[in-house]
């Protein structure tokens, strides 16, 4: 029910954005994320973008995971 999926913003018009989900396009509300820009990924929940996905943090998380995996190997 609290499902939200990352989707790419293709275009923006006022409070609405066109996003791409697995090759399909649909219009969603960006009233909760007015900072969203074309090219951003947003988390889409019941027709509303609830946040802009932070790419730098995603890269950092993957680095932390790699580090956890490395610690597993050396022990």
């Amino acid at each position, binding site marked *: *029910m*609290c*499902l*939200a999926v*990352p989707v790419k913003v293709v275009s923006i018009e006022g409070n609405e954005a066109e996003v791409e989900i697995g090759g399909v396009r649909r219009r969603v*509300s960006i*009233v*909760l*994320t*007015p900072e969203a820009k074309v090219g951003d*990924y947003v*988390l889409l*929940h*019941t*027709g*509303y973008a*609830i*946040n802009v*996905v*932070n*790419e730098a*943090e*995603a*890269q*950092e*998380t*993957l680095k*932390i*995971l*790699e580090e*956890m*995996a490395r*610690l*597993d*190997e050396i*022990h």
Partner: protein
Amino acid sequence: MKYIDEFRDVELAKKVVGRIEQLSTRPTRLMEFCGGHTVSIMRSGLRQLLPPTVEMLSGPGCPVCVTANADIDKAIALAGLPDVIVTTFGDMMKVPGSYASLQQARAAEADIRIVYSTQDALQIAKDNPSQSVIFIGIGFETTAPTIAASILQAESEKIKNYYVLCLSKLCPPIMKALLDLGELKLDGIICPGHVSVIIGSRPYAFIPRDYGVACVVSGFEPLDILMSVEMLVKQIETGKPKVEIAYRRGVNPQGNKIALELMDRVFEIGSADWRGIGVVPASGLKIKKQFERFDAEKAFAITLEPVREAKGCICGAILRGVKTPLDCKLFRKACTPEHPVGPCMVSSEGSCAAYNQYESV
């Protein structure tokens, strides 16, 4: 980066499991609060992969499942009124109330329509100006801002036939209620990722402080959950419980300020009726007086029969984490996804539905 496949890398997952094995030296009991986490854990088989020291319990984080029979009865009674169209998320259709489900009410000629978004409900209201359109507003903090936004939009666009049956519920207060019940000795909680997109991580601060229970806000891919388990185990092993965020690409400590402001404009805190737990003060949202003309409970008079609970159904105990679906005598016998007795078998995120789909006999 598409933010999905990167977090499903099986080889990396195996190594993170290995790391958790190294760190975990004592029995550790964790609750994944959110039904979305339960599904991801079951689907990817994480429960079996984790070392035997780490026990995972499912929590009450499924809005459909925690909706009380009394509230489903209200939705069905509203649908029975003349010139009313009830709109609802699809998950709610098959949930049995005291006497019927919305699906059965629809078969008996009530006009009940499944929507994906409050935007769709608003459109139905615009398209049917001579009828009253009521949205069944279930959900946690993730969904509440979208309901608030719809009410504000109805006001600004002067859509006068749009109403909400507000059943929104709040997560931190129910976590407190569960901890106060004292039925479970929890060491850590995997906090809900998309609720936290809205509220941030700060509202969980009381959990480590007052209860000594570790908290990590998690994303929903297998690697997100494993990373959260690693962080929880590390907190627990070092005896330093705190609130951490593993899902940093989506969650920051402050949450979504705009969403919180919209909620604050439209809603006030009130009590909520939770299946299996009961009425919990300050655990739900009510529509403020200023917007009461959109409140279906105020706008329509309905009469309700006494509430009845299904015999033998243990959804309540499952939602509190004290029982699993395998403890239920009805599971996979009298209660199946086709003929559900309780809501945990209806919602795709319900524990019973997840166990039914992914757990072998």
